[in-house]
């Protein structure tokens, strides 16, 4: 579960990234975080993961306050950033070993998970190469594998499907569904509204740091003309702001 309680974040007087954000993501659901460019999606995710500190308010993950108990909170989630360009001079296997060490993944379990996940995402033949030599999609995949190695209860994914080939995207979506169905949480941001429509149990639409809507897609459509597509509703909501 993820809870935002009255979270605010400003970058200067005219740039509000989070304006009294209040949001709850329950266990067992895939939650989509939608918004135009610069709306505050990545900032909200960075505050959730401890990269940024909110100016005020609280964020809890599985009941643990991220600010007060950061170590415990960070063990609860696996995070896939919007840019997969990190630690490029490590080999794929070295990166995964490193991530497993950071998250205290036991020995036999890590080998098993690396084997399984790298096979699923078709990265097993590339683990001996440096991440620098990977394409964007391959970098995305290695980061996803690294985030899932410690089998976190909460997945926080910032535009995870960008750059993935269709098979890998399908694999990831399947895994997201399985994860949510096992009473765990998936929180992800995306620009691809069709994915949000097909995958998400609930969505939130954010613009200029404010939540414009939070709820299920059917609720969203009921609030607007019921036959409109999510894309049209989204554009209407964010245009009027």
């Amino acid at each position, binding site marked *: 579960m993820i809870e935002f309680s009255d979270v605010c974040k400003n*970058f*200067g007087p005219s740039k509000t990234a989070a304006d009294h954000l209040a949001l709850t993501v329950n266990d067992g659901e895939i939650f989509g975080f939608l918004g135009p460019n610069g709306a505050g999606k990545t900032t909200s995710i960075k505050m959730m*993961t*401890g*990269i*940024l500190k909110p100016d005020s308010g609280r964020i809890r993950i599985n009941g643990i306050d991220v600010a007060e108990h*950061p*170590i*415990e909170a*960070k*063990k609860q989630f696996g*995070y896939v950033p919007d840019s997969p*360009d*990190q*630690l490029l*001079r*490590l*080999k*794929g*296997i*070295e990166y995964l*070993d*490193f991530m*497993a*060490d*950071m*998250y*205290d*993944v*036991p*020995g*036999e379990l*890590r*080998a098993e998970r*690396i*084997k399984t996940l790298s096979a699923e995402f078709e990265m*097993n*033949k590339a*683990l*001996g*190469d*440096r991440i*620098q*030599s990977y394409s964007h999609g391959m970098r995305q995949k290695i980061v996803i594998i690294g985030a899932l190695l410690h089998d976190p209860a909460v997945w926080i994914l910032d535009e995870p499907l960008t750059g993935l080939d269709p098979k890998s995207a399908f694999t990831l979506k399947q895994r997201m569904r399985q994860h949510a169905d096992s009473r765990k949480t998936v929180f992800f941001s995306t620009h691809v509204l069709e994915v949000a429509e097909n995958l998400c149990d609930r969505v939130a639409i954010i613009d200029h740091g404010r939540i414009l809507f939070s709820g299920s897609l059917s609720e969203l459509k009921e609030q607007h003309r019921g036959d409109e597509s999510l894309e049209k509703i989204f554009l209407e909501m964010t245009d009027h702001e």
Partner: protein
Amino acid sequence: MNKYGALTRVLFKNGAMPGQTDDTRSKIVLLIVAVAFLPLLGVEAAAFWNSYGMITAYHLEGAMLTGLLTGACVTMVLLGILYVISTYYFADDTVLLLTMPIPPQRILAAKFTVVLLFQYLIEVLVVLPGLVVLGIRGGNVFYWVNAILVFAALPLLPTVVCSVVSILIMAFSRFFHNKDRVKFLAGLLAIALSLGICIPMQLLGDRSVSIQDSSALMNKAAVLFPSNLLAGHAILDGTAVSLLWLVAFLLVSAAAVAVFLLLGNRLYLRGVVGLSQTSVGSRVTNEGLRTKRRPAVLSLALKDWRLLCRTPAYALNCLLGALLVPLIMVVTFGVTLHSIAIPHADAIVISLCVLFLAFVSMTNVVSPTAVSRDGPDANLARLFPVPMKVQILGKLIPGLGLSFATLIITTIPVCILYRPDALTAVSACGLSAISLITFNMFGLFLDLAFPKLLWNDETAAVKQNFNVTIELLVMAILLGLPAFLLYKMQLNLQNGLLFLLIYNLVLLEASAQLLFRKGPELLSGIDPSAKPAKKAADRRKTIRVTLGVVFTVAVLGMVGWEIFFVHTDVSVTSSEVTVSAGLGESSSFALSQIQKVYLKDTLPSVSGRVGFSSGAQLRGSFVVEGLGRGHVYTESKKGPFLFVIYKGGFTVLNFNDSAKTNHLYAVLRQYGQKA
């Protein structure tokens, strides 16, 4: 031509050197660098000025000038190779330019121009002072006109040499089609060539070279760039004939550029297409998967170590430096100072050995760049469920390990060369080891406080990082201070060693407190994406606070020094006595004015202080009971006190060492009545 001009402007602005971008900070850095080099230029000019008489007496102007021009060309080739390869083949803009309808010749011409501008910096340092001095002392109109044109055209040929070599290599050898490999090898080449020049020159020592030999040497040096003989004649001829030499030199340079552009037009694309950033590694089998968990601190240290080794800029500047610097130092000192014997069992010598060993071992600059080298990845520290102290420790380990390795590499040849006694060797090594831990921690703390995270090229993280300079400066001061204090305190060996041990342990504790108390907070607050304005404001505030602290410490240090270490000094000449007591307090009186000189066991009560007073120390003008206002300079509460009454006033003196007081009395009493 328009495309060439526009392309050159864009490539220049896109560069990574200071002053190439539009921002004010970059221009300020360039200005500071320029100002910093002025003293060097001044020293060079002064050297030429002072030796001008000898140069003209032996008709060495031509040899000198040709040597300067050739030296500049050689330096440009040595330092330009890496820059040329990086600019022509591995710059970020290369891929974009290749997709545009621009002939390769034009791309090359623009990149050539950008490299040329860099070469002028070298030329200014090497050639300009000598050229200007020769012109002022003996030049005419022809000299100056030709000198300016030669100066403008000189970098063309060496840049062509670098360019042609790189084009041929890249076109015909796939071995170099790897950015990391090229960068590393080119850097190695530059270092090897530099050592290849420095070490033989060092080994030449003070062997005198006859005038005849030096002329031959200069002429031989000109063989590397024969066109410099034409340039030398053009500048020094001083008649209209010099223009012919000049035209010949310019034609040669122009021809070289033309050849380069023709060659480049045919071969540049062949070399630039299909470049890769890195090589393909081996397959990982299921059996190769690790099943043992590694502690987080070791995993972090291993991650940093791998990145150090695999990033050419870091490997060249950090790792290679750790191995080469001891070698260079040992060769330099071993050849020139091998006959010096190290005094045995001397605390000051041990202190200086610690300074030398620690300084050499810290030149790997790993710790003061540990955070900067992360760049945009610095964010990761806040993601991991690993305590910040553990992450800091993980960052410390590579630098510590390398420093200790360098210490061992340095100590062994030093012990062989100088054969110190066992106590000196063991003490120096032990204290150096403590210093290494101290200054690795301090360096890491500096980089946590002032990280350089926004860079386009990894080299900037290590070479344009002032934390390195600050760390080495602080280390030099803090490790040099004990030697000075030992000299002043005149402690015996046992007490001296004890003092050194306590001193180093105090520094160790201070740096540990600094790193592990402030460090976690600093690491949690690092944000590579923070707005430049906020970062600049934070930086300014930090600089103000730091300067304030440094200033306060310096002032307190100076005052403390004056109080505790500057003693009253009395100088007696044939006509007067001068007393200097530090803190600006001094006075003098004529011997002929002395009326009375006497000793007393106690000092009457004093008041009306105009000067310094602390405990037994009095320095300045005081009202002494029974005598009125006069000068009082005392160091001890215990007598005797020397009273010198002279016309118009008096002076009371007393030293810690009573024998000194008595001796001064013996000297001065002949000039006055006895009490």
